[in-house]
């Protein structure tokens, strides 16, 4: 999967705040939300942003903390917008 790390090795709260502060189109999803064949881990409600055709989302790694990733959105952008 192609992705860009926008914020590395941070706490979940720092990642959630980064997304809420830096993007306008934001959707809040529950923990365990399935996106890109991955089930999101985090403190709900979990913010996911849409920027052009990209998804901006937090991603928790057990050993490395939380990251904010920018990933080409494909059909996930449509799924988020439709669910609103």
């Amino acid at each position: 999967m192609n992705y860009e790390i926008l914020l590395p090795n941070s706490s979940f709260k720092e990642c959630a705040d980064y997304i809420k502060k830096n993007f306008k189109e934001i959707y809040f999803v529950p923990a365990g939300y399935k996106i890109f064949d991955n089930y999101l881990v985090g403190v709900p409600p979990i913010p996911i942003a849409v920027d052009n055709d990209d998804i901006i989302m937090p991603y928790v790694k057990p050993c490395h903390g939380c990251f904010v990733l920018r990933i080409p959105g494909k059909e996930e952008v449509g799924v988020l917008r439709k669910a609103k």
Partner: protein
Amino acid sequence: MKALFMMGCPELPVQTAAALYIANKLNKEGFEVTSAGNKAAISLLLNSDPEKHYIKKVMDLDRCIGALAEKTIDFDLCFVFIHSDSGISYLATIKSISKAKTIAVIFGKEIEPLIEASGDSIIIAAKAVHNPTPLRAQIDGVKSWAALTR
């Protein structure tokens, strides 16, 4: 009765010791214990308990989250092993996607913020990195885990 261990990065040595110690107590009360973790955490458990006397099943962490989210599995108790912010994220996730009663097993050097962030979970916490004795003392303070399922 079924119990789940959610195990994160095993960089602190007490994690594996605490997990096996709790699993022994759970087994005596009739629980079947499944452990979910990353490769390193699971490898440490399986090398410490090669005949699976204590841990009956193991699962990949991401697959376990997926199965809980899809409601194909669930547990009566879930012990989330926490020594960093990532552990708090896993605890919050389990509370959202599982009906299990959650127990936050907190260890490391700076446990106070983790205790504060654990909300209404049952908390077993001690400052412990290499020596599991302080954590074991907290675990021993619980007389019956089965009672939590009633």
